[in-house]
């Protein structure tokens, strides 16, 4: 008896994971929407040991690549609760990665923060990119004193509403992404992606207005099962920074989510210095996660270079 790799269909995958807490990125609605928007195929991988499911991962593939849709996404990974801490999970990852490497030339996975051990990827020649995100717990909405001061302002110039004015929202975020220099091809996919998620009931929007004129908004991916919300698109508020609009919009959104029963918010990213500095004022907790990538060609080149380096090193050592 040993580890066995299988590719399963979506129904079998739902069956295996139904008893566990499947987050939004592993939900059937999310997977179907994403695959449709990005024209991806599914690859549901399952690794079993002695017939018991140890690890299952729903991946997206495109041509000869395993890929992920965008940076507003974490790969859903299901690991058997009993095996989580044991070496068998590492062995299961090893089996899975070797299978993928035999079939695909490029593999990119954006691991969730729950996967803290990147060794199976290191041992299989993946490049590891450490990324960070901020997680804010909604139990106690405490902020840095600067934010507290803004939120307490009595002169309220702004009004806030949620889940309305969708057309204005799409237009606004489209322009926002444009000003960030996002390529047109990506921007159009992002918009389709969020519209698709909205149609599946996985997105909410929290808007800010000045004299009833739409100003900005925060787009939120919601995970009701895990009581977690994600802030992928936080709109800019040109001309309203000094009056504290962004802080008020954050506070409105966090308060609303808390009242809806959400427990944590992932601010989706803490990797750009200035943005991270601003987000840190909401006193979240910093968490690392990994983006791992593998390229058959790059590994081949690296191996050759390493061999040459070793030979040169040996020659130099003997010459000395």
């Amino acid at each position, binding site marked *: 008896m040993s580890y066995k790799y299988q590719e399963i269909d979506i129904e079998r995958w739902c069956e295996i994971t139904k008893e566990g807490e499947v987050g939004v990125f592993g939900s059937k609605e999310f997977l179907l929407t994403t695959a449709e928007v990005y024209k991806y195929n599914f690859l549901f991988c399952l690794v079993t040991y002695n017939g018991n499911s140890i690890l299952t991962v729903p991946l997206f593939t495109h041509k000869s690549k395993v890929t992920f849709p965008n940076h507003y996404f974490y790969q859903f990974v299901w690991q058997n609760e009993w095996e989580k801490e044991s070496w068998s999970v590492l062995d299961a990852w090893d089996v899975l990665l070797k299978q993928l490497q035999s079939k695909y030339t490029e593999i990119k996975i954006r691991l969730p923060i729950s996967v*803290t051990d990147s060794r199976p990827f290191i041992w299989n020649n993946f490049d*590891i990119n*450490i990324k*960070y995100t901020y997680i804010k717990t909604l139990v106690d909405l405490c902020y840095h004193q600067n934010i507290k001061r803004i939120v307490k302002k009595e002169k309220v110039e702004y009004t806030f509403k949620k889940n309305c004015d969708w057309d204005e929202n799409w237009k606004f975020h489209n322009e926002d992404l444009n000003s960030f220099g996002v390529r047109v091809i990506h921007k159009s996919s992002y918009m389709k992606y969020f519209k698709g998620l909205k149609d599946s009931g996985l997105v909410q929007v929290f808007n800010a207005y000045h004299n009833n004129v739409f100003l900005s908004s925060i787009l939120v991916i919601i995970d009701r099962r895990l009581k977690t919300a994600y802030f992928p698109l936080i709109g800019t508020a040109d001309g309203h920074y000094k009056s504290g609009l962004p802080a008020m919009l954050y506070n409105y959104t966090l308060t609303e989510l808390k009242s809806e029963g959400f427990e944590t918010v992932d601010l989706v990213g803490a990797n750009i210095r200035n943005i991270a500095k601003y987000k840190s004022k909401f006193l979240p907790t*910093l968490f690392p996660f990994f983006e791992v990538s593998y390229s058959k060609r790059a590994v081949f080149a690296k191996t050759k270079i390493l061999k040459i380096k070793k030979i040169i090193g040996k020659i130099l050592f003997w010459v000395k």
Partner: protein
Amino acid sequence: MIKEVDEQYWSNNVSSSKKSLFFEVDFLEGVAESFSYNLHYFVFENKNKVLMAAALYSDGNNIVTCLPYTYSSIYFGDGLSDRKYLLITNDFIRFLKLKWQKISLRLPVEIKDIRPFIWGGFKISNRYTYLKETETSFPKKVVKNAEKATTDGMTLKVINAEDIDLKTCIKSFAKQGFDKRIVQSNLEMLASLTEQNQLLAFRADTNEGCVCTSLMLVDAMQKKAYALLISESLNEFAHVYINYERCKWCIKNGISQIDFCGANEPGIANFKSSFNGVLTSYSIVHYNPKYAFFNKRIQSLREIAKLIISRKFVF
């Protein structure tokens, strides 16, 4: 602001408050002498309170790490906010870059936020080790094997490291990644640590004599021990036995945590995982101005290409 200070200043302001072997002048100097490196002390103070301290070694124009199994002597004061930590670390990196060319640091496990190093153009290697609280139990299989070794007549001797043949040990350790070219420096360093009574040797004996030797660095002030190296053994229970008995010795001698010093090779990591340690990550960070310059240019070119492509479609 970060400043470089002398040994006296360090001794009075850092060693006295940060009670750890890795911040003791004797230890730091002993290591520096063994490798013929220069030693530099840095502190960041605010209102006469040390918020950050680091003792680093330099070799010519480069900052280097010389202990392949422990961490760079860097510490941050308790209760620092995220923003303060980022400010201090950015200042520290800027200071090092101004004075040195290549910079190599093995960050202690306590430093979890390495964003300042990423932003500073450092290359990051993610590494792991197992930390075991000595009071936590061992899995049944380990206990059974250790007991089997005892029944078979295996005994443990804790000796001062000078009583073992370090040279033979190092030859054996070379197979575990020890750089053979610096064997002499390592020997001197281990001898220096032995002189300071920081290094202990654990020897497992059977009727046939010594079957396995292991070296452990003890930081009594922090109540921590570092399981540095263990020699190869033909006896199937020797490694389990030494690790098990060493843990018992640590409990008796007030050591609360053992660092297994690495979990990065599959076979070795699998063995170490069997002692119920907690997997903990740390980072090795490298800075090479040439690579950083090259990467920055590539990134700029990418940004420009992105802009051109996006504008082409917009207009």
